[in-house]
């Protein structure tokens, strides 16, 4: 028997919550970025599940754009982490401070 679509929605919400937890709890910027990826993926699952439910393929199309955003985000995010690391030798979000170079 196939699992109803709603199950996937709940699962996606749990994954999203775990990702949010990671963003708040961890201090390592790289792990924070990973948690953000997790959240984005949870959202993707929601999109796909709803696309399946509404039988409209647009939900799947949006996932394309989410993937692109995720890739761009990681590319720039990690470039910032790198630039910061070469200056201060740390990836700790608390020590980095806000936007000061």
């Amino acid at each position, binding site marked *: 028997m*196939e*699992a*109803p*679509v*709603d*199950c*996937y*929605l*709940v*699962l996606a*919400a*749990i*994954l999203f*919550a*775990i*990702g*949010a*937890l*990671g963003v*708040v*709890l*961890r*201090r*390592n910027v*790289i*792990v924070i970025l*990973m*948690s953000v*990826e*997790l959240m984005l*993926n949870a959202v*993707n*699952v929601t999109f*796909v*599940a709803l*696309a*399946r439910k509404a*039988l409209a*393929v*647009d939900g*799947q*199309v949006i*996932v*394309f*754009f989410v*993937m*692109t*955003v*995720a*890739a*761009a985000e*990681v*590319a*720039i995010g*990690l*470039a*910032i982490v*790198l*630039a910061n690391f070469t200056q201060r030798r740390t*990836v700790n979000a608390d020590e980095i401070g806000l936007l000061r170079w």
Partner: protein
Amino acid sequence: MILFWVVAVLSVASALTVVLHGNPVYCALALVMALFQVALMFVALDAHLLALLQVIVYAGAIVVLFLFVIMLLSLEPDVPSPGRYGMRAAAITLTVVLGVEVGAAVLLSEPGSPDPPPLDFGSTRMVAERLFTAHALPFELTSVLLLMAMVAAVVMARRHT
């Protein structure tokens, strides 16, 4: 149904590993695992093209970049240390609120599975035709986003060499 539970348990377990494991390399590998489970969910939800692209983009590219950065910076393992108690409280509240919200949403919605999808639902051709006609403008804008990411990354990386 069995498959769903396997995927659910594995994905939650690997997601928790990402969040809680001290060694960033293990976090990254757990992330790969979690993303695989998401790909399996896509298959179950008839998003066949997306499942494959998920593996190519996330597992094949994004996590590789994560691993590169972690390994080349040779980071020491760190324990998840919530610095401020306010943050921890906020996190738990957030999670609980979200859980309640989703539970309510699911309970309030009409139960039951929708109609079986048409045979080619989620096939490459179907998704592509939608993507390149109805969503042509976002698609073009995506290129600008990628362009900005490319240029920004290069500028950032070069500044400090």
